[in-house]
């Protein structure tokens, strides 16, 4: 599956990541 670039600000820190579209946000899963 193609990856999508996402940019989030998590707890004030900007994070860029490539994720598969089906990945869920739950951060402890290691999606981001």
């Amino acid at each position, binding site marked *: 599956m193609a990856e999508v670039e996402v940019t989030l600000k998590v707890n004030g820190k900007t994070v860029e990541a490539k994720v598969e579209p089906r990945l869920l*946000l739950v951060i402890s899963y290691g999606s*981001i």
Partner: protein
Amino acid sequence: MSLTGTHIGCDTTHCGACTVDLDGKSVKSCTVFAVQANGAEVLTIEGMAAPDGALHALQHAFRETHALQCGFCTPGMIVRASRLLKENNNPTEEEIRFGISGNLCRCTGYQNIVTAILHAAAALRDTPYQEAAE
């Protein structure tokens, strides 16, 4: 990111253990796609304390009033409660119970969680907490 405070509970949006704040709204992150959060601001339990490590009023109140036992629901409960108090800084017990109704706790019976949120609300308003009359 190594942020392990947000817990996986039911993975089906029922329990609230995975609650985070997404652009000013409480969401259950187990059913939010990462791409849906693109460009958003996310607050997790790790972002609650001050940069110097001082606990947030809710974290302090949970500790002081014994509002947790196993602690699994606590990160989601605190992040949810912080949003609740931003929306209503002086909630009644009933409003708190309604406000956290999407977050399940299997240990405490909720009473001390509600008490902790009342304590934190008072602390954030800078007024002493007073128990409601029976």
